[in-house]
């Protein structure tokens, strides 16, 4: 195939097989769910189909690990893409297995819910693999639209609709400003392909600094919203609190990771030649995000809101490393971001799945309702403690190792001031993580010390996540090697 200029187009659909498989399965899940009465199928079919689709897509992505090819100059399948594909599929897989009891009990429209999770995964995968602005924009919207609906699906919870409305209205404004920013970049460079933009911008002064700066600011506003960077974070705590817990986990893992992937693709690619223009904006945003996220977390009483602010703080550390990408340490800083992202996601999933099971048992999500959990369910208390300690960056757990690598990469790029703020913020964060741990271990349970157990899938997922938390904390080489390979694909 050739395009209108006579250049050859590579239409090798095999490259897109993981995405295609997930799309087909998501449509199947939604379609079968719509006709489940007429077809007389049991309630386990949608979740089974969703899991089957994810497993097939995961296998296909693993088979494509060593690819480096583009699809029609729209999508690049390289090691960076493969890293994120495997990460995103694994997140959805773990989430569905770990919290399917919650989904069946507390989510309305279960089948559609699974379909939406698969669609959101596809959007996230395309965000990491796009090599052209329009494709990236459509991928962002595929992820966001699926999540707007998923947030509103908590059964009999008034907060859910409100959360979704806030998310969709603010999200619309953010996409509009992102698009205005992209139109400015397109106007200055006349291109939407990443490598063409990069070529025009590195060729020298375009003489159009004002539109370029406006474009950069608006792009940072739009992406900052998706990444919950301060001061565009106002939707985050509300959406996190109102959403069903698995969606909260999805928002804090996949949605954040996909935005960071896009940040790396854009600011480490087409926008790298004008790094000096955006570095100071992004450092300001990173500092504000670290400080505000960690300080406001101190006064939270709801565990989902606490984790929302904690994830805002974590985003600050990663934005700081993106500033380092602009200082010419692209490959090191990118690999550090990917390592920290993977560690953060393993930890966050452990905490969220544990909280899901706690909610299944007690129906409560206040921090004070965790009183005496160490007596009524010592296993779950240990899991939550390990997760929170890892988020705070305690040694022996993966959070320490990844945070160390991240901070080290930023220091070697010469941003000592940023790292100082990060270290102080990270110390503050220990306090609010310990508040939860204190409730679990230092108080007596309020309603008797009756013991309760998790379901089998609950034990399997939390134990698997806990083991990877400890193993990667002590021996992080495989994680580091994978991240290094992914970063090498980009630079």
């Amino acid at each position, binding site marked *: 195939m050739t395009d*209108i*200029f006579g250049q050859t187009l590579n239409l090798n659909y095999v490259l897109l097989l993981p995405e295609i498989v997930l799309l087909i399965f998501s449509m199947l899940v939604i379609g079968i769910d719509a006709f489940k009465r007429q077809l007389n199928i049991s309630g386990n079919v949608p979740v089974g189909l969703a899991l089957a689709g994810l497993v097939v897509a995961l296998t296909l992505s693993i088979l494509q690990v060593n690819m480096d090819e583009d699809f029609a100059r729209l999508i690049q399948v390289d090691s960076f893409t493969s890293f994120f594909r495997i990460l995103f599929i694994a997140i959805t897989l773990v989430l569905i297995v770990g919290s399917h009891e919650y989904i069946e009990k507390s989510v309305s429209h279960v089948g559609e819910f699974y379909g939406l999770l698969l669609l959101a995964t596809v959007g996230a995968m395309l965000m990491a693999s796009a090599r052209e*602005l*329009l494709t990236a*924009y*459509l991928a962002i*919207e595929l992820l966001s*639209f699926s999540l*707007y*609906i998923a947030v*509103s699906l908590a059964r009999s919870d*008034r*907060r859910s*609709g*409100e*959360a*979704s*409305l*806030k998310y*969709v*209205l603010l999200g*619309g*404004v953010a*996409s*509009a*400003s992102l*698009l*205005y920013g*992209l*139109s*400015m970049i*397109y*106007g200055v460079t*006349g*291109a*939407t392909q990443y490598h063409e933009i990069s070529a025009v911008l590195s060729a020298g002064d375009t003489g159009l600094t004002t539109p370029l700066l406006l474009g950069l600011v608006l792009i940072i506003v739009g992406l900052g919203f998706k990444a919950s960077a301060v001061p565009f974070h106002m939707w985050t*705590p*509300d959406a996190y*609190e*109102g959403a069903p817990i698995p969606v909260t986990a999805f928002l804090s893992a996949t949605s954040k990771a996909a935005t960071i992937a896009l940040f790396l693709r854009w600011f480490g690619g087409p926008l790298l030649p004008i790094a000096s223009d955006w570095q100071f904006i992004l450092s300001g945003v990173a500092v504000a995000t670290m400080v505000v996220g960690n300080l*406001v977390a101190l*006064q939270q009483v709801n565990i989902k809101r606490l984790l929302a602010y904690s994830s805002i703080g974590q985003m600050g550390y990663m934005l700081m490393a993106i500033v380092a990408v602009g200082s010419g340490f692209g490959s090191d800083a990118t690999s550090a971001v990917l390592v920290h992202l993977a560690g953060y996601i393993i930890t966050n999933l452990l905490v969220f799945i544990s909280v899901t099971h706690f909610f299944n048992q007690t129906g409560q999500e206040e921090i004070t309702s965790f009183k005496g959990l160490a007596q009524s369910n010592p296993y779950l208390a240990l899991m939550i403690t390990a997760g929170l300690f890892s988020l705070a960056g305690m040694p022996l757990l993966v959070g320490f190792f990844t945070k160390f690598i991240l901070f080290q990469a930023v220091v070697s790029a010469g941003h000592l001031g940023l790292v100082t703020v990060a270290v102080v913020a990270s110390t503050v964060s220990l306090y609010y993580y310990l508040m939860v741990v204190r409730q679990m271990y230092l108080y007596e349970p309020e309603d008797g010390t009756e013991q309760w157990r998790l379901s089998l899938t609950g034990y399997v997922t939390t134990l698997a996540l806990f083991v990877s938390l400890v193993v990667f904390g002590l021996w992080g080489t495989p994680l580091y090697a994978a991240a290094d390979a992914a970063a090498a694909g980009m630079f």
Partner: protein
Amino acid sequence: MIPIEYFLTLGAILFGLGLFGVLSRRSAILILMAIELMLAGVSINFIAFASYLDTDAFSGLIFALFVITVAAAEVGLALGIVLRLFRERRTSNVDEASDMRW
């Protein structure tokens, strides 16, 4: 020929009006209309750039087409959510939908 600045100014004015509408209106429906206005400004920008600077390719025009389509989808989705909120609370005012603070 009309200079490109005219179109860009129109786009900027529409975008600014939309942003002002989002900040000043309290009804969810009117906020959605204001977001549409912002997106109209974006489309004008893309079309102007495409026809003045990038005449042999169509990326800008295709971008504008997609912006229009996605905006329509977004409004459909958001109206569904507004409808759900209205069923629960008998209001589409965003100030009254504030169970959650801080």
